[in-house]
């Protein structure tokens, strides 16, 4: 599934309009990519997802945080791949048959991949159904929603990427 990011011009325009009105941008219905990590479901904003690819040979990179598993070649573009398991505090595990790399756009336009155990589907969740995560939320979790009787944490890709940069 491939989703492009809106042209820079459009993003600037929306952000400017939102800034003028003093509110954060709020689309009405969020489209979220549902993935599985360590047996639990998590969500990622679909507009940040560039593509999803199967696992492929990962080249390890020296002197990087353990969160960075290595780099892959994506049609010639070399992209870092981060371990979402580790980012979420799960133990390391060998990726299974359903493991995928979710390729995201960062805020500055850079591209990075997240290794997940499985990719399930795309959910359409009304903005109103996204709640504040309770108590002391884990890093990178910006909201909580429920689907099919389970809670899903919505992750902020930029915060995940930042975890690696530290």
């Amino acid at each position, binding site marked *: 599934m491939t989703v492009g990011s*809106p042209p820079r*011009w*459009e993003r600037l*325009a*929306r952000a*400017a*309009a939102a800034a003028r009105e003093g509110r954060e941008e709020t*689309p*009405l*219905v969020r*489209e979220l990519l549902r993935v599985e990590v360590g047996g639990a479901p998590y969500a990622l904003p679909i507009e940040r997802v560039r593509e999803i690819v199967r696992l492929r040979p990962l080249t390890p990179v020296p002197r990087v945080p353990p969160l960075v598993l290595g780099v892959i070649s994506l049609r010639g573009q070399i992209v870092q791949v981060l371990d979402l398991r580790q980012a979420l505090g799960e133990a390391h595990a060998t990726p299974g048959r359903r493991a995928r790399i979710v390729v995201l756009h960062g805020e500055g336009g850079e591209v990075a991949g997240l290794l997940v155990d499985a990719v399930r589907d795309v959910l359409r969740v009304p903005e109103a159904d996204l709640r504040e995560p309770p108590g002391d939320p884990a890093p990178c979790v910006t909201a909580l929603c429920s689907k099919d009787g389970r809670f899903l944490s919505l992750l902020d890709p930029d915060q995940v990427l930042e975890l690696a940069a530290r």
Partner: protein
Amino acid sequence: MRAMIGAALEELGEKVEIDEAESGFAALRLLPRRSYDLIVTDINMPDINGLELVSFVKRDRRYERTPLVIVSTEGSERDRDKGLALGANAYLVKPFAAAELRRLVLDLLPDARPARS
């Protein structure tokens, strides 16, 4: 952009049916298939430009009465004037608030049963 417009219009309720076309040519193909109550189109499209679509719609007896809204960036007056001169009913400038679009639609369609291309 299409997704945003779609989402904004869906808020109008279940009486709204929306058809999306990803290009001018696709729109040309969709038009004869259903009787649409409203058309919303972008000016900047890769194949035929929005003005050409407006011109076609407003010159064709089958569609000339269908209300048509043009969407474009930065409110460039030239495109707006041309579009309006060609017969478009209304014009929205990006970025626009979803509420603005909804109000416009309700204005143009007293009976709020829009389908859109």
